């Protein structure tokens, strides 16, 4: 058991050393870009042009292909950040701290997209932009947690410090999310019966569902791609004075010639 533990530790530490990461990520990046763009476009095109029109909502429902994947991503990214946060707090792996920072803004954006697309969708279907429903509310709170993390990071001038600070916050965040989901559920049912529970919506037809799955996968890949890009930018920014960074760029310039 402890050997596996040690292996994970040494592996993360090693692969996470910024120069090494930079090396393997620059090889992986083009592939990641190609694959994620292909999967994402397949999902989008399939969903938006080739899936059947909903008999009740018409074509508005197609917003689902953005809404649901981004809502899912919004939650997964916080989970991812909490894992990185754990690694940062316990082992002080530098790069996992940068990972949280790079993931935070992506997570916030996806959550915001989910909120906005949801609102846009809500206007025609529910007749209002916003309802204080359990799921919506907890998504809003999720967004607040992201902004708290981002705000904290920006307020600290020392960036390695800031990384550790937001690791702590994302650890607390992940612990509180299930409580919020649960309590918000109770809260709603306490006052009045839920009018718009999403879970009791009619189960989807498979030819609507399949493109959705592809979209979700595409969003995950896009996240991986954006994350790598963000992280590389972050590394270059943080280590701009280190020799390996200037070397990297010198090499790049030589290759360009």
């Amino acid at each position, binding site marked *: 058991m402890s050997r596996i533990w040690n292996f994970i530790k040494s592996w993360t530490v090693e692969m996470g050393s910024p120069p090494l990461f930079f090396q393997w990520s620059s090889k992986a990046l083009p592939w990641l870009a190609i694959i994620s763009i292909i999967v994402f476009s397949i999902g989008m095109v399939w969903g938006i042009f080739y899936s059947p029109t909903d008999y009740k909502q018409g074509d508005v429902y197609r917003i689902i292909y953005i809404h649901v994947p981004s809502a899912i991503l919004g939650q997964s990214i916080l989970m991812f950040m909490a894992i990185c946060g754990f690694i940062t707090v316990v082992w002080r792996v530098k790069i996992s701290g940068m990972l949280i920072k790079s993931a935070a803004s992506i997570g916030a954006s996806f959550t915001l997209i989910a909120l906005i697309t949801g609102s846009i969708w809500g206007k025609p279907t529910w007749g209002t932009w*916003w309802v*204080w429903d359990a799921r919506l509310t907890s998504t809003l709170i999720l967004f*607040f947690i992201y*902004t*708290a993390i981002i705000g904290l990071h920006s*307020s600290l*001038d020392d960036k390695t410090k800031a990384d550790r600070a937001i690791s702590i916050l994302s650890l607390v965040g992940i612990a509180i999310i299930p409580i919020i989901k649960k309590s918000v559920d109770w809260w709603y049912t306490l006052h009045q019966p839920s009018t718009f529970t999403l879970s009791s919506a009619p189960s989807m037809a498979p030819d609507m569902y399949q493109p959705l799955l592809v979209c979700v996968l595409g969003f995950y890949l896009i996240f991986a791609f954006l994350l790598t890009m963000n992280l590389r930018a972050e590394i270059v920014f943080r280590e701009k004075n280190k020799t390996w960074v200037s070397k990297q760029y010198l090499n790049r310039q030589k290759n360009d010639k």
Partner: protein
Amino acid sequence: MKSDIYNWFFLILKRDLLIAFRRSSTYITPLIFFLIVVSFFPLALSPDQDFLRSLAPGVIWIAALLSSLLAVETIFSEDFKDGTLDEFFVTNEPSFVLVFAKVLCHWLITGLPILLASAISSIILYLPASSFLPMICSLILGTFFMSLLGAMGAALSLGRSAILSSIIVLPFSIPTLLMGTAVVSSAINNQDYSGFLLIMGAMLAIGIPGLCLLTVEAILLNYE
């Protein structure tokens, strides 16, 4: 001499805006704080649409006051600690220009985000679109007045007794709160709200010179 004062004013404004923009939390936090406080009310009270709409003016105004007050509280403290406030007072330039520049800068970096946040809140609290414009107008006047008041409170509590600040600032903010709420609720009920706006404008007109001068005095108190 006159153009000198303008340059002086812009020097301070530029300096403070630059520092504020270097730390994005200065303008993001009031916005988020506002939204969180607003979302507390549906959570703690009831998510019912009609109920929330009737509550909305009060809720938005409470959130605006709180976030502007909280944000203003550090307006002088950093300059005081690192000695730059001393330097501004040592020059022969008029000090109330300094105070006004700092208040204006503060309003730009917190008041504007609060306006944005209140626009979002008016949607999630189901405010009718017709009340949007009066709400924004009253908020502009009100948050600026709060920045002025808060600056005075912050000056009084520089280094010591925070009690003075909250006891002075909170009661004085109540008229603004009541006026502001009155503007928005009148607008919702299609009543005339211009009277309230006028009163708020008048308060601001008196407040700008009056409170700036008092704030100068309050800052100088800390040097004795």
